[in-house]
């Protein structure tokens, strides 16, 4: 999401580089939900998910000097930190990637919370996402939320490596259209 309310992304980055806790508070208010979305997609345990979120923001704060705006958007950097931390935490606790993110396209599209209800809807996911084809959503979820490698995605979905690339591209093109 674009930072429009109070800071431009450049201003926010500058403030954070100057260790402004006010800017950090703003960062949290605007990004914690999106980052938490990544975490809870992988972590079942609510308390553990909270710990991971807190830890992710602590890492962001402590390592902010290593963020390089010329190498990508701020959120991209933050979501990579969060995703890697989440996966590392689960791994250290003996979880397997597959536990929550299914490799099966259909099961991802019918992602449920165990009550048969679509978890996306349960979480209030925007209806705009309906335009995303199930196989597109599957591939994005596996990559963006699951931290799967291309090869793993290819193996799990039975889709050739080259197709993973093109499918990824069309899925993201769709995302770029959907929300602004």
């Amino acid at each position: 999401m674009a930072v429009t309310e109070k800071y431009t992304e450049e201003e926010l980055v500058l403030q954070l580089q100057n260790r402004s806790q006010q800017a950090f508070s703003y960062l949290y208010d605007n990004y914690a939900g999106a980052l938490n979305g990544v975490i809870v997609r992988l972590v079942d345990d609510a308390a553990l998910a909270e710990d991971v979120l807190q830890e992710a923001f602590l890492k962001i704060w402590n390592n902010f000097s290593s963020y390089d705006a010329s190498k990508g958007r701020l959120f991209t950097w933050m979501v990579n930190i969060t995703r890697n931390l989440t996966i590392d935490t689960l791994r250290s606790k003996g979880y397997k990637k597959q536990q929550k993110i299914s490799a099966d396209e259909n099961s991802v599209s019918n992602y449920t919370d165990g009550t048969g209800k679509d978890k996306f809807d349960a979480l209030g996911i925007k209806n705009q996402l309906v335009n995303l084809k199930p196989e597109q959503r599957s591939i994005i979820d596996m990559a963006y939320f699951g931290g799967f490698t291309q090869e793993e995605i290819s193996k799990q979905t039975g889709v050739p490596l080259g197709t993973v690339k093109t499918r990824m591209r069309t899925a993201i093109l769709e995302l770029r259209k959907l929300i602004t």
Partner: protein
Amino acid sequence: MNVQEIISSGLLELYAADIATDAERQQVEIWRQQYPEVAAELSAIELGLENYATANAVPPAANVKDKLFAQINTAAAPVVNINTQPAKVVAFNGWKWAAAASIALLIGSAFFNYSLYNKVENATAKLTEAEQQLNVAKLEADAMKNDIEVVKQGLQVSLKGQPQMPDAKAKIYWMTGNGDVMVDASNLPDAPAGKQYQFWAIVDGVPVEGGLIITNDKGKKFRMQKMKSFGRAEAFAISLEKEGGNPTPTEVVSVGAVTKI
């Protein structure tokens, strides 16, 4: 690949989703720096994914933010990983330092004790030495006091060297009270090898043996020494005799008459 081919390759999407291989990542980073269109496209892709994440946002638990800010405002604010590795390291270092400190203290204390012990030993030795010196001085003082008494109370008779040995001088202190005779032999030359001084009292014109005089014992000069006691005598004499002495004097070297009291 031209810019359009790069954009449509799907590699930028893999890169943005953080699932590019290392080789692909390096390639994309070069392209991004090389072509502004690639950079713009990447930015748009990232924004698309960002929007997807926002659409899937899940509001965090209310207390997480407070805990987070409490944590970053803690003085030490260490990076506490969930596996608590840094905390362990910090704790371990603490023990290490504590152990090192106590070992240093122990060594310091041992050294201090050792040096104290040495000082006490030194002091004790010095005290013993001082006591011995004091005893020696006391003995010397007693002897000197004795000599002074002799000089004060005794009748002094000066013996003069005879022509064959003019420097054979000695002083006799004759205690009038008890008849003790003391010889101060310090002015007598050392007796020649194989010879010894012998003391005589002349009583009624006859020399009476009064004992051997020791002038030098292992390099130490003898001062006052007690001879035999005489009730009466006209004169005193010292002769040189063979070692062990003779019953009668053979070579008188020093003579002094007793002056009338």
